[in-house]
């Protein structure tokens, strides 16, 4: 029996059915015309699931390679129910996939998987980051005083992991014939955009601490101190020069106010 729904009721019931197969949706308002109304609604449910799952596959290829299609698609279904898409721009969908994977019992035997997902989300953010003109010279850089800070390119991202996440990511997408041997150590990764592509490298802990401090607007002095707390032999000038060579410094600005929190990228 057809009951006239308002447009608002119709859309709310329709959307609920797209996100949950157990919800019948506005079936009584749908003309069957030779098919069950539920079957017609199910076409949209499948389509919505496929569009959003496909977006996650594109963003998370290494996670997909590590867990296989069946487990990935099942996780994607669970994820979109728990964390629905909020935007008409699909590039914004999937930000919390790593946190969702952490909650899955099936992922407990892959404890590194959430960090691989974090790395892949950062890869996407690196591709899509704003452009900014790098500076060529740091003649005005005063490494003796604490009154300046480094402005990093917006495409630069950092990830610190307890797992060898960079090695695992490479192995997932380009498996070698030899078995992957992991020594149990974590890896700290820097990501940036180079010629329109994502570039990645692992960093020693002191360089990571220094660049993370730059990313949090620390003064040069404080960034150096943070790095030297990790490694007393850390050389600030070498770190700054390597950023400069990769065109990842976009400005040198007066240092304004200290931050109380320690630098962290997670």
């Amino acid at each position, binding site marked *: 029996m057809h009951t006239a729904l308002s*447009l608002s009721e119709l859309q709310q019931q329709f*959307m609920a059915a797209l996100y949950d197969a157990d919800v019948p949706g506005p079936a009584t*308002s749908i003309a069957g*015309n030779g*098919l069950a109304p539920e079957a017609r609604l199910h076409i949209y449910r499948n389509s919505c699931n496929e569009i959003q799952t496909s977006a996650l596959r594109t963003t998370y290829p290494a996670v997909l390679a590590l867990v296989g299609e069946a487990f990935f698609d099942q996780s994607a279904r669970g994820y979109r129910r728990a964390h629905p898409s*909020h*935007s*008409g721009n699909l590039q914004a969908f999937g930000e919390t996939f790593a946190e969702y994977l952490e909650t899955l019992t099936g992922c407990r035997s892959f404890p590194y998987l959430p960090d691989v997902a974090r790395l892949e989300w950062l890869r996407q953010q690196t591709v899509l*980051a704003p452009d900014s003109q790098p500076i060529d010279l740091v003649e005005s850089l005063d490494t003796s005083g604490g009154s300046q800070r480094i402005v990093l390119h917006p495409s630069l991202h950092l990830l610190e992991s307890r797992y060898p996440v960079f090695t695992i990511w490479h192995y997932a997408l380009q498996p070698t014939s030899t078995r992957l041997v992991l020594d149990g150590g974590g890896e700290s990764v820097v990501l940036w955009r180079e010629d329109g592509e994502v570039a990645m490298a692992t960093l020693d802990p002191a360089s990571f601490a220094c660049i993370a401090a730059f990313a949090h607007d620390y003064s040069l002095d404080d960034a150096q101190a943070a790095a030297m707390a990790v490694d007393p032999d850390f050389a600030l000038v070498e770190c700054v020069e390597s950023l400069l060579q990769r065109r990842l410094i976009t400005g040198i600005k007066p240092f304004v106010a200290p931050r109380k929190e320690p630098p962290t990228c997670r």
Partner: protein
Amino acid sequence: MTNPIATDVQPVPAAAGIGLRAPHVARVRDEHPRIAWLETHSENLFAAGGPFHDAMDRIRADYPLSLHGVGLSLGSVDRLDDAHLRRLRELVNCYQPELVSEHLCWGAIGSRHSNDLLPLPFTEEALRLMVSRIGQVQETLGREMLVENISTYLRFEGGDYTEWDFVAEVVRRSGCGLLCDVNNIYVNSVNHGFDPRVYLDALPREAIKEIHLAGFTSKENLPVPLLIDSHSRRVDTQVWNLYADAIDLFGPVPTLIEWDQDIPALEVLLDEAAHAEEVLDAHRALAV
């Protein structure tokens, strides 16, 4: 509504273009293949920077451009997503496309987005909502927009209009342009059982600024025929025939080949575009 288009905007010609998708961006940028015009999804340019913007900076100097949105959700009862609309306005101001389009559908409600093109009931309530939203977008963008008729796999009970009268009335009341997707008309004619030529006849000819063509797939093992607007194949013969009828009715209109799944080599898209050009040329030959 007039378009405050800058003088360097290249008009989209009444010829065949293609939807520019990621696998072909580098080749189009570097080799400048002969294509009358290009269309890109607006949302693919929503990021603040990156390689697609770099490529489009060069591509838009070589080709007339259309921006086609898939995520604004014009027909949602919820208010329009302000951030989405603001970003669209920035892109329109930056890229100065001659054509800007969205879909006659809804896609989101209550902070959940389907990222799909969902059907509206053809009621007076939905019609008024669409007219009001199109007005809001045209006012925000300061220019005309086109709306596209979508493929659907269900019809709601009741309703005050046929689909074609609904589309025509939205265009008439809002003053927007119409992006007539001929494949979607054919798909719906099979899925819902009507004569697609009746649909074409009902459309306001002067409002039709663009045509879309694409391939569909057929759902098997169902008690009724059901076509899916998959954008995954060549344009079907029946759709080519309907396109020729549309051109006879409307005259030559910028026509776009869309292909979004199982995207083939650029040559296949160019071949489909050449077929559309033949239809346009045949009409012009007869019109002389």
